[in-house]
């Protein structure tokens, strides 16, 4: 029995430049994993391979034992949702319309079903989007947009949620709220994989951490093992100190 999501020796290159070099990792349902690493480490590319947007140059990426490229697109979209960093929207779709787009893998007809509308409603409530549901998506702030995009993915009621820097533009309150939400989804059995450069959020919420640098896996394992001072110094090239909190959590202080 293979893992839920399995990455087997995946390599990828842009214009001959290798950005992923034989990356292997596996993830199980019901865990929250973080992919961390400096800029250009290949985090986003790896995530895009997991969503099926890119096919690996060599190696394979499997979902439930079947190569992602072989899944019918629709069936795959009913189970795996992707949250991009941003969405460049050329047209005046409302926030709610964007969220409802997440339901399109489920409907064949011209109109959304009552079920679709309920799912969207729930997703918007979970991400605190109801207050601006009728506004033009383009007129929202960066953080609000990210919440809408996340809501669209949640409306997909996926079994796997892949997020690319989901909280970059959010204020602190919403960063914390979203990660708590992700932790809650994990508890319900969802596999959540988030790319982030915020090691403290990863330390606080992730069960396991995949650390990438220059397209190679530097470390992969439980968060408290991977996010140690040596790894962070080596991978991020900054000085840092790990501060143990009284409640057992850690706080990584870096820079001055």
């Amino acid at each position: 029995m293979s893992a839920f999501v399995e990455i087997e020796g995946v390599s990828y290159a842009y214009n001959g430049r290798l950005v992923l070099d034989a990356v292997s990792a596996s993830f199980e349902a019901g865990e929250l994993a973080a992919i961390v690493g400096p800029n250009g480490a290949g985090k986003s590319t790896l995530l895009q391979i997991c969503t099926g947007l890119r096919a690996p140059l060599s190696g394979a990426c499997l979902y439930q034992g079947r190569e992602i490229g072989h899944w019918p697109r629709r069936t795959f979209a009913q189970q795996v949702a992707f949250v991009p960093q941003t969405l460049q929207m050329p047209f005046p779709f409302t926030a709610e319309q964007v969220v409802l787009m997440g339901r399109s893998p489920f409907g064949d007809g011209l109109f959304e079903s009552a079920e679709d509308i309920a799912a969207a409603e729930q997703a918007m409530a979970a991400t605190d989007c109801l207050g601006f549901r009728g506004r033009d998506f383009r007129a929202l702030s960066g953080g609000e947009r990210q919440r809408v995009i996340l809501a669209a993915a949640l409306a997909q009621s996926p079994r796997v949620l892949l997020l690319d820097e989901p909280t970059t533009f959010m204020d602190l309150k919403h960063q914390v709220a979203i990660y708590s939400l992700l932790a809650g989804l994990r508890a319900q059995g969802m596999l959540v994989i988030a790319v982030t450069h915020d090691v403290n959020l990863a330390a606080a919420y992730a069960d396991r951490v995949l650390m990438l640098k220059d397209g190679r896996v530097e470390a992969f394992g439980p968060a408290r093992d991977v996010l140690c001072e040596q790894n962070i110094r080596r991978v991020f090239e900054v000085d840092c100190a790990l501060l143990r909190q009284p409640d057992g959590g850690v706080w990584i202080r870096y820079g001055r």
Partner: protein
Amino acid sequence: MAASALTPARFARVLGACLAICALVLLVTPFIGSAHVDYQKALAGEPPHAQILFEARLPRVLLASLVGGALAVAGVLFQALLRDSLADPYTLGVSSGASLGAVLAICLGWRDTGSIPAIWIAALVGAAAALLVVMGMASFGRRVSSFSLLMSGVTVNSIVIAVILLLQNVATFAQSFAIIRWLMGGIDAVEYRTIAALAAILAPVLVYLVWSARSWNLMAAGEEWAATRGVATTKLMWSGLLAGSLITGSVTAITGPIGFLGLIVPHALRLRLGADHRVLIPASFFIGAAFLAICDTVARTALAPADIPVGVMTAMLGGPFFLWLLRHRQKRYWS
């Protein structure tokens, strides 16, 4: 303002309103014209009243509405396909391809090919050829992206226009006269079978587009967005490209290029009804149809017996209205 989830009730309400506007225009415009028509005599089939009404005016109104609707839908489609609200049915060079075909037919003196004018066939072939070149240039393997489409479309467009200019330069005086006339575009009374043929091409394409409108919503928001929501993006793009070119090519073959409409009708409707293509596509058809029928009515009556190129009217009537709409919108946005 745009409600969000599209219910059948809202769909019916909005399209009902658009259809009503279109129907009203189609009912009124045949009764407006420069020549005097006694409608009782016309209904009794008395010449020339019957011919003026049923053979000169009505077909023209019908053609104008079909063409207007078609170009507006093609505008919506190309805007979604290229993810650019400034795209129009001509951005990808389909209509310059059609023009090149027509110009070649004029220069080489191709005439009748039985029942269909050679110039229409040549224009259709030209449109198809331009499309094939654009698609060939824009595709990498089996993938195609909005950006590469836009770039190759713009390039093919300029090359084709250059060839047209070259041909016009070497053409005889009478030929270059015919070329200029054709490039100006315009609606004229055509035979009913032409209108029927055009409708037969447009109807299935329109039904397909409305049916796939949810996918176009996703596509308009982004190729990756659509792909990760279960849309077969490459297939959708090819079929959209084909649909849009079929519309633009067949319309342009008959009327020559008619500008502006494919840009402003979708844009104005988006401001009013929102971006949902399930509403936008059929609404654009009805409003585009009404708009061109009105423009053409002005074109054929204002300077009668002379006929103004209808493209002049679409710009002169549509332009100021569009500016007003944008201005109005801005005010609301800022206040």
